[in-house]
């Protein structure tokens, strides 16, 4: 698999996004909170005249964010016609995958298995290849809904 990947850290783990899905990496300045919605939705932000839904990837995976640093940049992706900005610990670099994604015996843990396509070897080391629709939309029923 020679596709380009964007490598980032979420909750201290190294993850990879398929670069085809990634529109851009932007600096997020002002985020308008969306009260009454899921915890992992940090709010909405404007990218030119477009509205982005800002997703905190750590919260989407139920990770305690307190001890983690946060990249001031966000990854902009489009899933089913809607644009999202993903907040992660750190955006590492763009790289290529060395081998195709594969599963690991025993999985990656419930939350991670839900959002990961598999493990992918990259030039920056092994990363979890993330399935964007899963990460963004399919939130399990025991959601941390505030409403």
């Amino acid at each position: 698999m020679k596709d380009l990947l964007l490598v980032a850290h979420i909750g201290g783990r190294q993850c990879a996004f398929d670069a085809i899905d990634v529109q851009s990496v932007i600096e997020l300045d002002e985020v308008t909170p969306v009260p009454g919605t899921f915890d992992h939705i940090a709010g909405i932000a404007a990218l030119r005249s477009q509205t982005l839904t800002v997703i905190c990837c750590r919260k989407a995976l139920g990770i305690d964010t307190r001890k983690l640093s946060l990249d001031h940049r966000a990854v902009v992706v489009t899933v089913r016609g809607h644009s999202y900005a993903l907040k992660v610990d750190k955006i590492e670099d763009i790289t290529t995958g060395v081998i195709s994604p594969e599963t690991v015996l025993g999985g990656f843990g419930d939350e991670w298995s839900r959002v990961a396509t598999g493990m992918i070897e990259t030039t920056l080391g092994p990363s979890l290849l993330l399935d964007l629709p899963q990460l963004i939309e399919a939130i399990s029923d025991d959601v941390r809904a505030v409403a």
Partner: protein
Amino acid sequence: MDELLADFVAETREMLEASEGEIIAWEANPSDRARLDTIFRFVHTVKGNCGFFDFPRLASLSHAAEDALADCRAGRRSADQALVSAVLAVIDRIVQMVDAIEAGEEFPAGGDENLIVALEPETQMVEAPDLEPQTSHPHPADDQASSKPGQTEEVESQSSQRSQKQRKPDHPAAVQRSIRLPVDLLDRVMGGVSDMVLARNDLAHRLRQAGTQPTIDGPFERLTSILSDVRDAVTRMRMQRIETLFSGLPRLVRDLSNELGKQVMVDLEGGDVEMDREMIETIRDPLTHIIRNAIDHGIEKPSDRIADGKREIGLLSIAARQSGNTIAIVVSDDGNGLAEDKIVQKALSTKLIDAQQHENMSREEILQLIFEPGFSTASAVSNISGRGVGLDVVRDNLERVGGSIKVSSTPGIGTLFTLQMPLTLSIIPGLTVESQGQRFGIPQSYLEEIVHASSQTLDFKRLGDTSLVAFRGQRIPCLNLNEVLDLPPDKTDSEPALGQKTMVILRMASGEQFCLAVDGIAHHGDLVIKPLAPAIMKCGLYAGSSLLDDGQPILLLDVANIAKRYDFVSDARARIQKTELFDQKKVAKASERIMLFTDWQGRRCAVRLELVHRIETVASSVVTYTAGIARAVIDGVILPLIGLPDGELRTSKLRLLRLSDGMSELLLAVKHVDDTAELTSAPKPVEGDPLVHAITLVGDNPALLIDGHELFSRHGEPPAPCAKPTCQLPDNEWARAILEPLIVSAGYEIATQDDCDVAIVFADDLSAESEQYSADERRIIRLRNEPEVKSENPENAFPTIYRYDRDGLIQALKHASRGGGER
């Protein structure tokens, strides 16, 4: 060359779309010459265009169809059912081939001969080819193309010009010149324009801060107006009439009903409704699916229909309506309706519901089960609607774009599907409110009134956990927006009590009202609504997002859903609402409200709030002076304007209070509007200024109370009389251009028929007409062309008036209208 090919494909498609309806109309009446010509032109153009490219099969197909149609045109042959079907088959094959060409695929060989043979009349099998001898002769354009291979493009443009010339004069639906663009590009342009508007707003804000700078303000105003034009145009670019979707439906219905042995008439309505191009594409499949369903399952076979006492032809009606920012498409058939028991059976057998659930379900709810995944009542899966796509897919597709679908049905009478779709790029007027420092939008359509709760008009009570306010004689429930949204309380200053907030009274479509308590009103204007991500939509509080002038995104509250969440739309609510409140009068009396403003003399004035209809901000240019009286045009109405400063206006914008006494309106110019307040202290009458009748204390400062009675008696203009007398004019240019304005300004309406109050005629044309009016001579005014009365015409006993004798004419009109008034 690729570009030429793309053009060919596009042009063929476009023409086909335009003639789709014609083909069906032609079939209904094969002798219709105009339709025949349209279809002939289509195949002819295809044939001609094929000459440029190496498409021998396409050429021979279109050629054969052209031959057959040419015979019909020449009267050598009459168009019958067989011919229509054969021509349609050829057109279908052409479409398939064009599709293959576009995809760059090889079209499977064979089958063409059958189609061509089918075109030939059975009786004239032998003669037909001879009648049109030019088989081997290429189309003239072909010669040109082959002789000048280097100028293909030019030839193409010539030929398309020619074909346009051929098409234009008698083409029933003249196609506008158009180009096709990728939607992405349009999106980019739209995004760019939106950004430009935001940048302009930002700049405007900065300019205001910097103060007036004539050298910059002028060009800036120009930029503003250009930008708003561009914005309008760009918005329209994305819109398309729903007609483009409808035009293909007659053909679909025809094919389906033929296949199923049913007779269906289709009735289309609302084709001029405009909606987003992409939205039209999104609903194309769902709509097709519902139509298939209606014809397959809904409408019965002709024999069954006759047995049921219905017309043998089923009626399928498809209507589009726009209401607010949604579009509703209603598909109804007059078939046998949905069978409730069958649906229940199926739902039970597929474990969609259990028996207990079933008991609690109303017929309405049961019918909606047909949209559940894995549902299909048809016992035999036919090739029409049993294609593995269920109504659940239809619903999913619609919900993905924020739409909905529901069904209602009466057994034996018919079924009605209602599809609701939002206009994605809708711009709606809205109110921006503030809650805990964050802003939210509310669509204006829900807005009933805004009341500052500090006033005593609102009687505020807490019952149990519910808050109620008394508003106009009714107790309506009150929600605190901060609680609805679960906003964390502000740490710095304690939240004001609910009774101290601004109350936004909202009215639902069903008539229920409720009150939303917010911290403040931030802004009021157009909001460009954009869809929200499904994850946010799921919480049910928001309907969309919008960008403020400074580029900050805000959320649009889903008022209907919030009301539903708090059970404000149940029947029980409506009952509570209807109980009239007791001493409403007392409440109203206790608080007379006034609007405080500063007039152009710098005085602090007040006017009773009941008089204020609206606050308007207008450009100074709408003000005109006639004989010392200023007037301004607002919403297309000319209203008297008072309170302007003496001398030149130095501002470009004017704040006006639009006052109304219920009958007439007038405008009061103010320097700025300050606030509204209670009229607490008793007004103390003062004299001097006739328009000020009292002075009152508001807070610690005095304010001059404007005398409404004096104001309207002096300056109010009576409304135009409802029924003006009518006047008939001679039918010529002079009367229309010169006489009519005079008559209208004298308070007459121009009569279009013989029945009128007054008639003006030229004495010279008096002939038969004179007898007609002789019944009441006072109602005729005769005009003459010469200033002096002709002496040589003594028998003309009727008085005449010179046509430019203005005073005489008006006198005569007054006299005549009094006479006419007695009728």
